[in-house]
């Protein structure tokens, strides 16, 4: 039945998508819509379909007698089987402090790293453009406390250790000798990594004149 092959492929693709989403939690939809990520999901889908083919050639029905149920059991087995097989390692080799895995997982690791690099490159361009557009009017000295606090307030669930780590970055910027423009871009970039582009844009819009460098009304807090 053609539907079973399609479902097996979708199963594999979803597992690949899950790995991409886990690595790009801030903007998962953007990451999934890149060609390398789509290629990675297609690769996982083909692996699941191939696994289903192998299961059917050998007639493994996983102990289910009903032919229809056995077909679907094979689909589930193919999805999980391909995932397990592609992520398996036969043995580990120690090279100094590094442990190198030998097996199909090694190949998958290499594919995943190249996907991550390609996605990172593509998203770096998008992030750079987005940050410079969102932060164009923002004054660092007015925004370094108010903007992150407001963004975290919108998110509501940012863990305390993430807030502490972010605070250390901001304190580094406050004391650094670099141009205000670069400080503002770095503030925006770090915030975008944590809260995503949409929340950052909303926060900048909502705070408006309070963090706007062109606004004469807002007081400028001393760092």
């Amino acid at each position, binding site marked *: 039945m053609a539907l079973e092959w399609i479902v097996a492929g979708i199963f594999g693709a979803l597992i690949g998508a899950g790995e991409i989403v886990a690595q790009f939690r801030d903007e998962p939809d953007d990451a999934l819509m890149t060609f390398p990520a789509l290629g990675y999901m297609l690769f996982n889908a083909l692996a699941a379909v191939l696994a289903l083919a192998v299961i059917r050639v050998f007639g493994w029905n996983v102990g289910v007698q009903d032919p229809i149920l056995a077909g679907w059991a094979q689909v589930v087995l193919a999805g999980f089987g391909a995932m397990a097989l592609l992520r398996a390692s036969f043995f580990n080799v120690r090279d100094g402090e590094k442990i190198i895995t030998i097996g199909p997982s090694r190949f998958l690791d290499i594919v995943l790293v190249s996907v991550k690099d390609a996605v990172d490159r593509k998203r770096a361009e998008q*992030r750079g453009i987005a940050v410079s557009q969102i932060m164009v009017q923002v004054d660092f000295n007015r925004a370094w406390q108010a903007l992150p606090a*407001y963004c975290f307030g919108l998110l509501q669930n940012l863990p305390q250790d993430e807030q502490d780590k972010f605070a*250390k970055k901001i304190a580094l910027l406050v004391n650094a000798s*670099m141009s205000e423009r670069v400080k503002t871009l770095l503030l925006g970039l770090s915030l975008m990594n944590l809260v995503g582009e949409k929340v950052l844009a909303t926060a900048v819009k909502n705070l408006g004149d309070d963090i706007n460098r062109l606004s004469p009304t807002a007081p400028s807090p001393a760092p």
Partner: protein
Amino acid sequence: MERKYTPSDDFGSFLSTVQRAVNQPQGGDASMRIIHSLSRRKQTTMSQMVTLVKASWSDFNDSLKYLQAAGLVQIQDDNEGGVLLLTDEGAHWAQTMSLDWPDDDPEDGDR
């Protein structure tokens, strides 16, 4: 004894940490020089970095601890006492900070 209930808030931790961290020793400009050097070399041994940064040992030490805590730099152990490299976010920072850096850097003649 009655315990006072303190509700968790969404940004209080950020505000209190940032106020403390602003006055905390961060190693001065050594932190920025470490990021700068790592952006050009990808990774550097600890001993090489001390020479490149040209800071006092205490400033270097403060900077490194601070950058690690901020998640911008990581240290990998090796036989020579540690290799420094930028995290993904540290690399993004370095890319943006390069807008402020001059193209020619006499310290980086070996790049």
